[in-house]
């Protein structure tokens, strides 16, 4: 034990920083979140308008006929965001009610892995840990779930359950490495998770060229399709039972932090590792357990990908979910139902952006821009308050003051 404990001052430094982050993430109001979202959509609108050809054309004679340009802007932005809504929430052009509401199920399909992965980041945040390792953990989860899905023969129902469990365990294992390394060596989890992401991706690439994962008879890095028994059954349209698994995870994580003593310990470690350690809580073990739980949630996300929509493993199975999850967790303030709401919002953006690109020619990447602006604004409440002239919450300000006062006296 003695050989691996980092010097105390190093720990103290981290303790201070991490608890500040946890505080920062957990506080903040809904008004502020809505303001940040609104502001980001405005910026997205500006980008859409600025890149629109009609707008560019009419801007040439803006001072002669300003109405033309304003009209073009309204058309470009309105058209884009209208298409976004059509693709994400309600399609008035549908023939039946089912078709009209179809976009909602599409939103939920996108939201399923986002929420699960967002929880995986949120749980780690509560322990004062950054889990940037979503990509690697999702890959691990998808690989395990997929392998059980195509290489193992099991009766229906059982097959999908076992595949899901394999995905959860596989990802939990991969994430657990981070927890163990952090607990044993004091290495910073941000660096560990980033490095393990790429190691997982390369290892996965390699396995996709070996008989372990590669589809027989092809030279492409692609796995055989998962057997039908192991796929999440459909609820409606493309929406599958992975959605229900995700909802169960949300409730489980809510219970963990609201009602359980494990959650209590995780929160204690997140807010003050040193006080937790002094009170007899095994901080290293909590790190490992937290990362394992976080990984398990990422495993649900990975399983939702492979068993819900993709069916075959390819190098891009994780997509950008691992990083999107960070924004989901931040927007959701790391609270389970907040993460659910944030994940559905971003899922809607994903779903809607397809329609937006198809019908209005606005590239899907606008979603990334809006998403990252939301998080940037959320992270800097003073900035948003200044823009919207919102009052600063008094209680928080005095709390900060009393803290600094205590430090000085």
């Amino acid at each position, binding site marked *: 034990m003695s050989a691996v404990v980092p010097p105390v001052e190093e720990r103290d430094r981290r303790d201070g920083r991490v608890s500040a982050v946890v505080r920062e993430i957990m506080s903040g109001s809904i008004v502020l979140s809505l303001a940040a979202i609104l502001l980001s959509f405005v910026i997205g609108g500006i980008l859409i308008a600025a890149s629109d050809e009609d707008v560019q054309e009419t801007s040439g004679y803006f001072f002669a006929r300003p109405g033309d340009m304003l009209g073009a802007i309204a058309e470009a932005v309105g058209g884009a965001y209208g298409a976004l809504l059509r693709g994400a929430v309600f399609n008035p052009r549908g023939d039946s009610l089912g078709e009209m509401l179809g976009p909602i199920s599409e939103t939920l399909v996108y939201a399923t892995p986002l929420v699960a992965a967002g929880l995986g980041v949120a749980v780690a945040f509560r322990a004062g840990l950054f889990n*940037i390792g979503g990509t690697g953990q999702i890959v691990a989860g998808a690989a395990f779930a997929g392998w059980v899905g195509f290489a193992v023969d099991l009766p229906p129902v059982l097959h999908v359950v076992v595949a899901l469990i394999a995905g959860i365990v596989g990802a939990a294992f991969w994430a657990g490495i981070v927890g163990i*390394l952090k607990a044993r060596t*004091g290495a910073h989890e*941000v*660096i560990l998770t980033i490095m393990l992401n790429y190691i997982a991706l*390369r290892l996965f690439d390699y396995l996709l060229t070996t008989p372990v994962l590669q589809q027989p008879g092809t030279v492409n890095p692609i796995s055989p399709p998962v057997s039908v028994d192991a796929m999440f059954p459909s609820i409606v349209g493309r929406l599958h039972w992975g959605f229900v698994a995700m909802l169960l995870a949300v409730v489980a994580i809510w219970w963990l932090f609201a009602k359980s003593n494990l959650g209590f310990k995780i929160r204690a470690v997140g807010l003050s590792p040193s006080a937790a350690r002094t009170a007899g809580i095994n901080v290293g073990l909590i790190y490992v357990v937290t990362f394992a739980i976080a990984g398990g949630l990422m495993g649900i996300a990975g399983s939702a990908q492979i068993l819900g929509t993709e069916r075959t493993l390819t190098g891009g199975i994780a997509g950008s979910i691992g990083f999107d999850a960070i*924004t989901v967790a931040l927007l959701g303030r790391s609270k389970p139902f907040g993460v659910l709401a944030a994940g559905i919002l971003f899922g809607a953006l994903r779903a809607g952006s397809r329609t937006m690109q198809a019908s209005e020619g606005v590239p899907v990447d606008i979603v*990334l821009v809006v*998403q990252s602006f939301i998080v*940037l604004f959320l992270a800097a409440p003073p900035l948003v308050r200044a823009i919207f002239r919102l009052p600063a919450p008094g209680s928080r300000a005095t709390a900060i003051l009393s803290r600094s006062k205590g430090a000085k006296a």
Partner: protein
Amino acid sequence: MIRAYRTPIVLGVIALLVLVLFGLIGSDGDSTFRISTSGDFFTVPDLVLPSRGTALVLGVVLLVLAAGAALLVRRGRRVPVWLLAVFGVLAVLGTLSWAIAGGTLPMTQLLQGSLALAVPLVFGALGGVLSERVGVVNIAIEGQLLAGAFSSAVVASLTGNLYLGLVAAAVAGALVSLVLAVFAITYIVDQVIVGVVLNVLVVGLTSFLHSAVLDSASNSPGRLPQIEIPLLAQIPLLGPLLFEQTLIIYLMFIAVAIVTFALFRTRWGLRLRAVGEHPQAADTVGINVARTRFMGVTLGGALAGLGGAFFTLGSVGAFSQEMTAGQGYIALAALIFGRWNPVLATLAALLFGFARNLASVLGIVGSPVPSQFLLMLPYVVTLIAVAGLAGKVRGPAAAGTPYIKG
């Protein structure tokens, strides 16, 4: 006690691996290293070595070096960097001679390609060194590279001037890091969060603009010309490597030298490092912590942005979506593996570039090592470094911590 001997032990294990795996077990056949190219001043004949014999000899030499390191530790001295460097080069040679047994390895192309792949890593790592040395964790290197790549292509295309493109790259990188600085320093937002989000933002913005706005007129900057330094360029191996390159690579060599000198020998560097190690101490002697941090972070961003220009102006000659493909994170790895030291970080970046190029070269030559494992190397060695399995790395003490007065 074992802690102190960690480095010699690691070296010893590697030496034994080379000796046993590549020497005793090894493969028969000759390994050919082609050193000269047709344009050289004089021709050096191909180096033809028996694979197994070479590995045996190198394995023994490596063992001697490891023993030397152990001896130094026993006398209470540190293992010098040059010993590690020599050890590294020899170990790689031993591995190569095994990997290419029966084949020919064009050394010039191998090293040239490695250097090219290392350029953005070096710039990115240097930018990271400045940012982290002044106390701001820079996860946004990736975003700075990508912004540099994008704006250099666009500006160079629109103005028809490649050098303006380089300037634009630096400005774009500086702007990305300025956002990092504003959020991290002014708004005291967690630096890791801002960094991660900035990377996503830059991917989103550049991809969006690439699809929505760019066309062949605004995305065809062309490539920087090679500048050949007379005579020197004709030295075998070294000539093409060091003296027949584009401006951006010469800039890289200059940047490494300047950053190193400035950081350790000037008033500017002393203050910058003081702010990164102990901001309050710097504040109490009248150094403006916030301003120093803004300066360091922005300058670092400009360097990383310049590195981004290499993707477009220095190699493929056009911008494509997400073309940095995670190189920023490898630069981060090089920065950590290089212990926040500009020279060591550069060496680490070169090593990582070498590994990546070796992966593709060996893929062509046909070798027993799957390329994915070579591509994994930067991440694995960094993991080992931060986990302290081979001696603990220590970053600037205040990196990641915002400075709140009082």
